[in-house]
């Protein structure tokens, strides 16, 4: 199994969720994160003092999928998340050696 980790523009989350459902991936875990990269942050000014804010709000999704689903899922995310603007984010894939569904104890792909 694979853990697909994707960093997205926050406002693309719903589209991505739907796209993943479209390819049969019905579970994921989402976190709010701060991103740092090419996009760069912004400057805030309070009473004339400048504050560099290096980080940009992003969302991170983690979706565990079966090996066969990997390609379809990655592709779905990429298409749904893309706006073409710097800061669209990344997709990383890592290996999962084991998965368990807490409620039932099922493990492996049945757990997803």
């Amino acid at each position, binding site marked *: 199994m694979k853990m697909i980790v994707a960093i997205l523009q926050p406002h693309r989350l719903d589209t991505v969720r739907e796209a993943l459902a479209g390819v049969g991936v019905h579970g994921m875990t989402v976190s709010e994160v701060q991103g740092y990269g090419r996009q760069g942050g912004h400057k*805030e*000014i*309070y*009473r*004339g*003092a400048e*504050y560099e*804010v290096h980080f940009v709000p992003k969302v991170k999704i983690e979706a565990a999928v079966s090996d066969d689903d990997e390609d379809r899922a990655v592709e779905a995310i990429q298409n749904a998340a893309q706006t073409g603007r710097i800061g669209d984010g990344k997709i990383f894939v890592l290996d999962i050696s084991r998965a368990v569904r807490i409620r039932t104890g099922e493990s492996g792909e049945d757990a997803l």
Partner: protein
Amino acid sequence: MRFSRLARGATAPIALITALTASGQAMAADELSGANTAWILTSTALVLFMTLPGLALFYGGLVRARNVLSVLMHCVAVACLASVAWLIIVYSLAFGDGGGMNAYIGGTGKAFLAGIGPDTLSGSIPETVFFMFQMTFAIITPALIVGAFPERMRFSGVLLFSLLWLILVYAPACHWVWGGGWLAEMGVMDFAGGIVVHTTAGVSALVLVMVLGPRRGFPREIRPPHSPGMTVTGACMLWVGWYGFNAGSALAADGAAGMAMVVTHISAAVASLVWAVIEWARFGKPSVIGIVTGTIAGLAAITPASGFVGPLGAVVIGLLAGIICQWFTGLIKQTLKIDDSLDVFAVHGVGGILGTLLAAVFAVESLGGQGLAEGVTMGGQFVTQVIGVVAVAVLSAVATWIIAKIVAVTVGLRVSEEEEIDGLDISAHGERGYDLT
């Protein structure tokens, strides 16, 4: 405040005498006005509201999330401490009869409200009401200084500093200007506290932080305000409460109060817009923190002049407050690198001084004011105003420096670096500002 009544052909000149002689008879001679009492009772509530929660929120939103509670704590604790000190001795030192020393300090005759009952009058209102109204001024003044030292000052130091400050700075300054002291004799004009409240707080803030030192990592690593909305909420409450601060200082429900409310509001509105427009021009974006900072600058600036000037004066004072106070925030923090963290001096001090000086100008009838006292010229009054400001500024600076040193060697001024990093909410009060889980 008193003086104002004369300046505009006082509806209750007795008030002055009262303050000067503070004699039971003089009061008894006078007669209760239910209407004035109703308005001053209301004004007292409005001015307390300025500090609690107004100022507390205004300041609280400007610091890091991990220090928000400590700022609220400072404001609440200082308010409580000032109230008790006011009852025990400060009111008496400010408004009591100082006998031979009266030019410099009041006496102890009114300590613990000795001899003052429900039926004792001060001018046309019960002295208990006058006592309460003035107490709210004694509460907000040290609370203003809280904005200078957030995120790093030791809580015990905050308490000790504020207590000594009320006795050594506020009491004499208040007595000099409003209690029949030498500046009152000289005819200085300070309707609602440009000298007594804003000059004292502003100058003391600056001196205190010079002794205390800047926040860790200032200015590079300082974080932006954690909750501008909280700051805006507090600023709005300050605006509303300021109606009681200035219009209440007429000590009557009449046209003088009405005009004071007009000029107070106009100055605030103009200063707000000016501040925002300047930001817009300088940085491309007007900020909400900026516009409400302008509001407070405009309110502080009109305060001493609010009983003397007309709409024209209000517009000019608001305009200059928006420009000059904003310029000073840059001067103090960016240029001089003095960490008067929430700009107490730049906004309150400079605003109050500005308005005190301009009061002499815009009080003249030809400029729409209510007129100067019999036979006083604009120039003459201006000099008097300068003397008043300088005298009180020197008192504030010197006394604050001494008090700060005393605090430093006794309970200590500053928290440890680790406590500062963890934030004062946890390290000093064992609480966290937000737990949204």
